[in-house]
C-alpha cells in the first residue's frame, strides 16, 4: 500500500505570532524524510497538527489521503512519538504498552515483542516511568509508536537521549522500516543525526520551509557545489593553469580556493605537472547551508560560528 504524508499550506497562528507559515511538503513511502530546523522553528507544531492534537489555522495534513482524525484505529496506521516524557509517572513501561495494545486490539504478546525490540529488559519494564532514564523513556516511546505495526511513522526528535549505540540501532531500525515500504518522518535540530539516515530533507526556519530535497539537490540548488580547497608544491604554476581554464583562484592560508570541482583541479595539476599536497571539496557543507538558510531564526550569531568553522 502506498502510504504517504501530505502537508498542504499548513499555517498555525498563535495570537500575532505565526509558528507555522504556509508549510507544504510530502513524505513518501519507502523513504526516511528528515524534518530539520533550529529550536522554535515549528517542527513540533507541524507534527502535532498532523496527528490532530493542534488545530491548523489554515491548510491540512493528510495521511494516505485522509485526515488523521478520519483514520479508523489510527495507531494501526500511524506510529506517533511526539514527546516520550508525556506518560503517566506512576505507570510501568509494560503497562503503558499494554494500554496501547488494548486500545488497538492487539494481542498481549505484541507488548513483549516490542519490549524486546527496544531492548528494555523485563525488570526495566516493571519499573515506573518516574524511575526511567531519558533514553529508556525514548525507547519506550519508540516501542509505543511501533506496536501497531503502522505504515507511517511520525517521530519528533526520536534520537533525543539515546546513547551512541542506541542511535545507531534506531538508524538501522528506521532504514529497515522504510525499506519495507514504510513512510518515516522524523524531526531533529541536529544535522549530523538526520543527514545519516534521511533520504529526503526538509529544512524549516521561522515556520517556513527554506529548502527541501536530497542532500545533493539542496547543495546544488544553493550553488555551492564546485568549489575546492587545494594546496600544492607550486601554487603559482597551478594558479596559472587554473586561470587558463577560466576558473577563479584566490589564496587562502597556505593554499587556494578554486571555483572548480576537485576533479577539475586535479586534472589541471596533472596537466601542468604540479604535485598536490592537499585537495578537497571546498563547497559549503550542508551545515553551512542549514545555518545560512535559517539565519534569522538562529539564536546565536551565525557569522561568528562561520568564522570559528573556517579557522577550525
Amino acid at each position: 500500500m502506498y502510504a504517504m504524508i501530505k502537508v498542504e499550506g499548513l499555517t498555525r497562528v498563535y495570537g500575532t505570532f505565526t509558528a507555522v507559515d504556509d508549510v507544504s511538503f510530502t513524505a513518501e513511502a519507502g523513504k526516511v524524510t528528515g524534518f530539520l530546523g533550529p529550536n522554535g522553528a515549528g517542527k513540533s507544531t507541524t507534527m502535532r497538527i498532523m496527528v490532530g492534537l493542534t488545530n491548523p489555522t489554515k491548510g491540512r495534513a493528510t495521511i494516505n489521503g485522509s485526515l488523521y482524525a478520519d483514520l479508523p484505529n489510527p495507531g494501526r496506521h500511524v506510529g506517533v512519538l511526539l514527546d516520550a516524557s508525556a506518560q503517566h509517572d506512576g505507570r510501568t513501561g509494560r503497562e503503558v504498552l499494554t494500554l496501547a495494545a488494548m486500545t488497538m486490539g492487539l494481542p498481549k504478546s505484541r507488548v513483549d515483542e516490542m519490549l524486546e525490540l527496544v531492548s528494555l529488559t523485563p525488570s526495566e519494564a516493571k519499573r515506573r516511568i518516574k524511575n526511567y532514564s531519558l533514553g529508556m523513556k525514548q525507547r519506550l516511546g519508540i516501542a509505543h509508536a511501533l506496536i501497531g505495526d503502522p505504515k507511517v511513522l511520525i517521530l519528533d526528535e526520536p534520537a533525543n537521549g539515546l546513547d551512541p549505540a542506541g542511535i545507531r540501532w534506531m538508524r538501522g531500525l528506521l532504514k529497515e522500516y522504510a525499506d519495507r515500504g514504510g513512510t518515516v518522518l522524523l524531526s531533529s535540530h541536529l544535522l549530523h543525526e538526520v543527514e545519516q539516515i534521511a533520504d529526503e530533507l526538509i529544512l524549516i526556519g521561522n515556520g517556513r520551509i527554506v529548502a527541501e530535497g536530497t542532500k545533493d539537490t539542496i547543495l546544488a540548488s544553493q550553488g555551492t557545489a564546485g568549489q575546492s580547497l587545494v594546496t600544492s608544491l607550486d601554487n603559482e604554476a597551478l594558479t596559472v593553469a587554473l586561470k587558463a581554464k577560466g576558473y577563479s583562484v584566490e589564496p587562502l592560508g597556505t593554499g587556494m580556493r578554486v571555483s572548480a570541482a576537485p576533479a577539475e583541479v586535479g586534472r589541471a595539476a596533472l596537466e601542468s605537472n604540479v604535485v598536490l599536497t592537499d585537495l578537497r571539496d571546498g563547497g559549503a557543507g550542508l551545515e553551512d547551508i542549514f545555518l545560512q538558510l535559517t539565519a534569522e531564526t538562529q539564536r546565536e550569531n551565525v557569522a561568528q560560528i562561520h568564522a570559528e568553522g573556517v579557522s577550525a
Partner: protein
Amino acid sequence: MSAVSVAPSTPLPAVTKVPFGRLLLVEWRKMTDTRAGRALLIISAGMLLLAMGIVVLVAALNDNFSLGLSTWSSILTIPLSLLTPVLAIMIVTQEWGQRTNMVTFSLEPSRLRVMAAKLVAVVAFALALIAVALLCGIVGNALAAAVGGYDASWSIDGQVLGWTIAQQLLYFVSAFGIAMCLLSTPFSIVVVYVDQLLLPLMVWSTLYFIFDWAADLIPFIDMGYAMSPFMGAGGMMPDGTQLPDPGTQEVLALICSIFLWVVVPVVLGAYRVLKSEVK
C-alpha cells in the same frame, strides 16, 4: 543491540474502528493501574468501613441506641459524597496533568468518544461504590443490632434511596463537567467542594434561615436544596420541619439547578476539551 525485527511475528488482527467497549475497558484499567489510583480506591473502601465501624461502636457503647437501614444509608452517603467527586475529577484532569492526553487522543482522535468512555467507566465505578456502601449498610445494620442488643429494622423508603443515589450521580457528573472546564486537579477539587459542600453547609443554610427570599431562591441554584423536597416521607427541610409535597416551583427549581450545575459544565467542558490544543 537486538536484531529483532520491527515486523510482527504473527499477523495482527484486521484494522477496524476502535469499538467503544474497548475504550471503556482501557479507561477502567487506567483508574486502577497507578499507585495514586489504587490509593484512592483503598481510601474509599477504608472510609466506608471506618464509618460503618464507628456507628457499630456507638451502637455497642450506648444502651438505648438503635438505628434502621434508612439511617445507615444516609450515614454512608457522607463518605461517598466526599470521595466520588475526586474520582470523577481525576479521571479527566490526570490526562492533562500527566500529559497522557497526547497519547490518548492520538490513539482515538474523537475526543468526545474518549470523554464518553471516561464518563461511563467512572459512573460504573461510582455505582459499584454505592453498591458496596449499601452492602456496608446492611452488614452494619445487622452488626449494630447484634452488639447493641436490639432488633434490626430493615425498612427503607425506596423513594429516598432512589433520590439519594440520583443525587450522588448528579453531583458526580457535575464534578466531571467542572473538571473538563478547568482541566486542573486542584482547581477542580476546590470548585467542586465549595459548590457541593461548603456553600450548602455554611452559606446557603445561614441565608436560608435569615431571609425569606433565600428560601425561594436557593433551590434554584443548589442541587441539594432543590432535591430535598423530592426525598419524600423521610425528607426534611434544613430547619427540621416536614416537607410539603413538591409542586411546580420545586420541579422548576430542580430543573434549573441541574441545568446550572450539570448541563452547563458538561457542555462547556466538552467544548473546551474539543477545542483545546493538546501538548
